């Protein structure tokens, strides 16, 4: 399909436009309402997200054909893949806003700009999920990053939060600077910013009869590695993961949850699209052994994430490492992009998408419990969870389900997510990677089960019952129910199988 010009593109761009409008509206509303009524602002932000959701569905249905629609002269692309990620990101933002409303940590400081920033970061992520041009990729990345830095440091009087923000921005700036350098090299080699053109160019440039001094596999490798630094930093893959435990620990819990799910999902959207479109031909991938590179990164990521999680005492930090490990699992799916077999690539992408759905519920759920416990018991440490099963049986039960699902214990969604991933990886004949993944699943049981053990098998010093509102349980069940049932329903499998990159 021919790229649409700017004005016709706007129709398809409605969701993003709505987000921007509502971000502005949120700031304005914040000026109007009194400080105590900041909830109204949150509701407006939710309405904004809701309308964006409607817009996504509407624009998706008017495009009707399953063909992707390139917008703005091919800067971004609207397709099923983008739509899926947009919806996922949007829901994650909505969940974050709901968490924030209930978080006492953020309570007094909740201002309009918080929600405006959340909407803005969502906007950036939308772009990440749909960019097909180097420029757009960089702009999207920076939009997300800049707003995330601020959100991470949002607790103005908390040293931890400020430190998190500081580390985040220093790390992020260097990583994105490195990535930009890599992008510039890629641009220089191919002379274009459009991903599919880059792919076409690279095929020509790398062809054996072509002797172009600028494009050797080494140059390409350097460029790719630099770019990977930027993407890897977003998805917290080894060795670009080191910011995440500190930032996750220091940031407000809802933001941590948001970063661990939405930011990671957006990063994967970008990664998949970048390599799928930009390196469409397997010859390019094989020239630098991209498959092995990704596989090693994947194996290291999950192993280091899991191992480092073992001795953690802070649940938030533990979950930070756990989410690094999960990034590693997801990367296994990304490795399949390089397999060269369209069916396997499709399976890999489908597996990542399914896993992200599962991960969305179980990880956000776990963080929600962390929010609740931080509110009621005032602690983020594992010791604070002691005897939770008697103090708050339902919350403890939910937490156990989330944690076991994260471990990948069968019949919980996490198992099915892993199962799909491993099946795909084995189908791609990457046996050693699957093996590493399985070993890691067992290792991860150690630290997840430790929390369960503390909650269930150890007695609490403080035996007061914790009380929660009905709304809390309602929100909790929004995460618990899918965590139990997603894997048991065919619909999610067919959904994830039907979403493909184009």
């Amino acid at each position, binding site marked *: 399909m021919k790229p649409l010009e700017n004005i016709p593109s706007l129709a398809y761009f409605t969701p993003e436009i709505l987000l921007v409008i509502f971000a502005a509206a949120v700031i304005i509303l914040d000026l109007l309402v009194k400080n105590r009524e900041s909830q109204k602002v949150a509701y407006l932000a939710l309405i904004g997200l809701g309308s964006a959701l409607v817009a996504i569905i509407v624009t998706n249905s008017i495009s009707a054909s399953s063909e992707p629609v390139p917008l703005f002269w091919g800067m971004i692309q609207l397709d099923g893949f983008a739509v899926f990620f947009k919806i996922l990101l949007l829901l994650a933002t909505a969940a974050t806003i709901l968490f924030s409303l209930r978080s006492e940590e953020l309570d007094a400081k909740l201002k309009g700009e918080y929600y405006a920033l959340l909407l803005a970061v969502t906007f950036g992520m939308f772009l990440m999920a749909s960019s097909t041009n180097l420029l757009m990729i960089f702009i999207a990345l920076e939009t997300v990053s800049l707003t995330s830095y601020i959100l991470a440091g949002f607790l103005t009087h908390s040293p931890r939060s400020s430190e998190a923000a*500081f*580390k985040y921005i*220093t*790390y992020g700036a*260097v*990583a994105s600077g*490195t990535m930009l350098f890599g992008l510039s090299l890629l641009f220089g080699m191919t002379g274009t910013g459009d991903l599919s053109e880059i792919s076409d160019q690279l095929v020509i440039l790398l062809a054996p009869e072509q002797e172009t001094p600028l494009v050797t596999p*080494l140059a390409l*490798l*350097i460029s790719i*590695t*630099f770019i*990977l*630094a930027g993407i890897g*930093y977003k998805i917290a893959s*080894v*060795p*670009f993961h*080191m*910011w995440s*435990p*500190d930032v996750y620990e220091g940031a407000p819990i809802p933001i941590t949850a948001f970063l661990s799910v939405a930011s990671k999902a957006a990063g994967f959207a970008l990664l998949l699209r970048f390599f799928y479109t930009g390196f469409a031909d397997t010859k390019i991938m094989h020239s*630098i*052994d991209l498959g*092995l*590179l990704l596989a090693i990164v994947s194996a290291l990521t999950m192993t*280091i994430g899991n*191992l*480092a*999680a*073992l*001795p*953690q005492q802070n649940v938030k930090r533990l979950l930070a490492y756990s989410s690094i490990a999960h990034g590693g699992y997801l990367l296994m799916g990304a490795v399949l992009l390089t397999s060269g077999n369209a069916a396997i690539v499709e399976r890999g992408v489908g597996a990542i998408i399914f896993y992200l759905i599962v991960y969305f519920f179980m990880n956000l759920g776990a963080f929600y419990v962390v929010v609740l416990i931080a509110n009621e018991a005032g602690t983020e440490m594992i010791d604070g969870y002691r005897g939770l099963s008697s103090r708050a049986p339902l919350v403890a039960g939910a937490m156990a389900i989330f944690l076991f699902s994260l471990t990948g214990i069968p019949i919980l969604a996490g198992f099915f997510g892993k199962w799909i991933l491993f099946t795909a990886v084995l189908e791609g004949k990457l046996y050693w990677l699957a093996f590493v993944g399985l070993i890691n699943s067992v*290792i991860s049981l*150690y630290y997840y089960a430790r929390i369960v053990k503390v909650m269930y098998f150890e007695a609490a010093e403080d035996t007061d019952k914790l009380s929660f509102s009905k709304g809390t349980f309602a929100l909790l069940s929004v995460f618990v129910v899918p965590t139990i049932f997603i894997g048991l329903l065919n619909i999610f499998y067919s959904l994830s199988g039907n979403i493909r990159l184009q």
Partner: protein
Amino acid sequence: MVVSLISIILLAPLAAFVIFALLGLAKRSFPRQDLLSTLAMLVALGCSLYLIKEIVPKPDPHTVEWISLGNITLSMGFYLDSVTVIMLIVVTLVSSLVHIFSIGYMHGDPRYPRFFAYLSLFSFSMLFLVVSDNLLGIYIGWELVGLCSYLLIGFWFEKDSAANACKKAFLTTRVGDVGMFIGMMMLFTKFNTLSLYDGAQEGIFTQAAAQLTTGDMVWLSIAGILIFCGAIGKSAQMPLHTWLPDAMEGPTPVSALIHAATMVAAGVYLTARMFPILTATSSLVIAYVGGITAIVAATIAIVRFDIKRVLAYSTISQLGYMMLAIGAGSYVAGLFHLTTHAFFKALLFLGSGSVIHAFHAMHAHHDEDHTDEAAHEHDNHGLVHEHGSEIPPDQDMRNMGGLRKKMPITFITMLIATLSISGVPFIFSGFWSKDKILGGVLGRAMEWNSGHHYILFVIALCAAGITAFYMFRLIFMTFFGEPRNQEMHNMAHESPWTMTVPLIVLAALSFPAVNHLWFNKNNFKPPDQPHIQAPQHAYVSPDTKIAFSLFGLSEAEAAEEEGGKDTEQADKAHHAHEVAHNIAMVLSIIVAGLGILLSWLFYHRRRFSAESVATTFRPAYNLFWNKYYFDEFYDGVLVALTVWKSRLFAKFDLSIIDGIVNGVATITRKIFAAFIGFFDNRIVDGIVNRVAEVTWAAGGRIRRIQTGAIQTYLFVVLGGIVLIILIFRAL
């Protein structure tokens, strides 16, 4: 008809037990369990007697399919031949009498109903064993009687000695049973059935006769010996005999029924049943095991003071006799002796029970701490351990004496039994059966045509003499002379009629008429032994010639010379046997007489007190006693040898065999506790834990990289980039 009769025989005692068990579960008990059980037994006895009519020369097994696995079928069924019927009668008869006896003997016991329930269960199991037509059925009955034996030995389980004894009995016999089980596996693998006789499919015997070639002889010998292992355990043969003396911890009627008349004889029964597949080798093994057991047990019995233990060793010895008989091919003799022994030995035990009962009633009255004292008694079958205090006073023969006037019925009946077991000629059944065995053994020794096996005959003969000696020692010490313990003697009294009637009945059965009628019937023929080269057909029971035995003396001597010259000729075999029989008879009469005479000199003339006789058998034996031996025995060496031997065996018993049996658990406990501690904790768990530790340590290591300083992080990022480029550049 046969099936329904056998069913009644089996179900009557079973029902008595089931009623007890079900009521027990509801925490009740039947008011007269004793009468119920006794009645059940009498019904079974009646049916058994009726079954005599049903004996046919070549019976068919009555089988049902029991376990069917596709084309593999194990059937379960009854087989009724003359052996079965005689066993049924023996079991039901002795059991009935013991039931009646127990009504008096066990009166007042707190677990009185339970005793009868156990007896019923035992009778059922034993009868089941006897009527089964296949090895599996026999094995089931076999194990069930073992269980009952266990329960009954441990009936007074408050006594530690009883608790130890019952465990020991079960375990020791189980060792043998496992051998039998392996033998069954071998036979099954070969023949694909466990039925002995031909029913729906060909049984083991037919198949073995038809299929096996001489090449399979080793295999068949091993199978036979393994099956015999079961008998070694159950019939208390060397080296698994030690449990039986300890089993005397059970109530005396139990000793009479289980450990004298029936269960221990089941081993003989089994060996006899397996007769057709015994090979020359396995026969020889059986014969030697039996022979050695006979002599060893007899020598041990000499030095016992506990009346029940004397009888226990005597039982072992007699069982060895029977094994010897079967091993020597004297099938009829073995079973004949089994029958006669069942009656006279049951009688002896019941008689001793009567004595003990008499003393016990007094003793309980006199000394209320009896059970405590008894509880201290432990392992007192070894000579070294046999001091007065360790034997329950009411069983210690040194407390008895002169009872013949106090307890005339008991005395007379026991005397009859003793005469019978000692082999006093012609009017007592024991003589005939023992004589038959001796004759058979000698005959076979001649036939084997190898001088070595004459030793078996010598052994048997010696054992016969010693038997007569110690049995009369028992009689003299118990019933004759002056009362040694006047206080106890005064309290002793004749037992009530429930106890004396069984004694009288059994005494009547110790006379030959009844038994002879049975064993001289034509249908009681030994089965073929196709795997032994020399056929047994030549051996015709010489009972008809019995009356002329005295006359045959000179003939025998002449024949011996002749046989010595030319034993190889098969046609002489018949003659040799006849000759052998006559020789044996004469010699047996001589040794029995000798034994009785010696005993009389020792214990009735009573030149020496019982205590000094006991010291005779100590290493620090004074010259006086030694002289006594030289004076009274024509050959003092024999006695010294006997004493030395018995002490040796006693020691062997005590330290080696008992040591093994009792020590195994302790040793394994120690070794395995250490081993498990090592293996489970160090190796298996160790590996698991080590892996966990390493993992954990790795976590800690990785954690340390996360220093908190942002510039370190950045360094890692850039280092990572450089590393990736360096590594992948080369690829």
